[in-house]
């Protein structure tokens, strides 16, 4: 979707007299749209510059894309010649030192589940604070809610299927999406601040969140409970706002 958008916008700007170049993450889309200049890169969706914390690699991608502005004629698609460097680290299996997920979602005791979720959030708080201090930033914040409040919101949604937005300016279903993104960001930033887990792959993080945490299990439980609801908004939120389709598909097997 995004590579299509890059191609279309590129054409609009160029038609108005502004020279453009762009990165393509999906070569087939770029071939169809034919923007003036594109650098195809063999990287994971979400990482168009390839490698976090590797300025030299990122700069090579940038220069390759920008150099296309000097090409004599187009449209053209150039292939970036490098893959993301293979990790020399062992595959990291992430684990919060305390695993709250075992006896929770399967349990009939809703109060215990809520307590486990709150404990898990609190357990990660110190590591999240370290992550923010170390990086000088956080990507948590798009919902405008505190993470503890997000935990309560998501737990309550699982129990009742109803959402009451604490914010007047954002519709409840939009807030659910933003809150769940913040929730995941909090967990990911916290776990990657722990020793030996700084360079966890996106797959390792995904597996950890959805298989090992109460938060992941609660969000999956919302999807399973409401994805066939007769309430259209509830069904849409359960299907589209919480669990990536691929994550759900793999765990249904």
């Amino acid at each position: 979707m995004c590579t299509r958008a890059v191609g279309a916008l590129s054409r609009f700007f160029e038609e108005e007299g502004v020279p453009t170049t762009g990165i393509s993450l999906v070569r087939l889309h770029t071939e169809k749209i034919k923007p003036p200049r594109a650098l195809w890169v063999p990287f994971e969706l979400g990482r168009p510059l390839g490698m976090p914390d590797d300025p030299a690699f990122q700069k090579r991608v940038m220069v390759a894309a920008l150099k296309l502005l000097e090409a004599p004629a187009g449209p053209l698609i150039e292939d970036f010649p490098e893959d993301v460097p293979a990790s020399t680290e062992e595959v990291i299996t992430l684990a919060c030192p305390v695993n709250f997920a075992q006896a929770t979602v399967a349990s009939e005791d809703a109060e215990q589940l809520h307590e486990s979720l709150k404990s898990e959030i609190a357990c990660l708080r110190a590591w999240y604070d370290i992550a923010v201090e170390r990086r000088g930033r956080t990507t948590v914040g798009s919902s405008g809610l505190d993470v503890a409040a997000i935990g309560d919101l998501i737990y309550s949604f699982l129990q009742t299927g109803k959402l009451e937005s604490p914010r007047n300016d954002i519709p409840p279903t939009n807030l659910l999406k933003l809150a769940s993104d913040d929730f995941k960001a909090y967990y990911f930033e916290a776990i990657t601040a722990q020793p030996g887990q700084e360079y966890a792959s996106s797959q390792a993080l995904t597996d950890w969140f959805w298989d090992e945490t109460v938060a992941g299990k609660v969000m999956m439980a919302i999807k399973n409970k409401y994805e066939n609801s007769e309430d259209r908004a509830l069904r849409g939120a359960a299907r589209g706002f919480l669990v990536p389709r691929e994550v759900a598909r793999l765990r249904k097997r």
Partner: protein
Amino acid sequence: MPTFNTFPWVKGPPLSERRVAIITMAGLHRPEDRPFTRDSGDYYRIIPGNVKSSDLIMSHVSLSFDRSGFQQDWNVVFPIDRLRELADEGIIGSVADYHYSFMGADDPLKWEQQGRFLSGLLKKDKVDGVLLIPI
């Protein structure tokens, strides 16, 4: 998938003389900005050229891409530090005063009018090189 019958192509000076803006599809914005919606006309946010890494968060609607790279290093999505370095090294001429972020989960044909309007703003910022980046 939209198809087009034209092949627009604008020439310009050498890269070392170009003023470059980044336009990302990652749904980035400052925490004080409104999160992205899919409402008609609500298509982009402005990112000032002097933005700090602590100033940007993401409110993209899609669940189907990795976000941990951005959490670790914003340059893997919005490489403004690299662009500043390229300007310092003389590889590009300068960095634009304003950059822009779209939330690239929508039909881009809806963006045509605002895209063309934005090109006027880029020209006023003397931009003659736009780097568009998907997510």
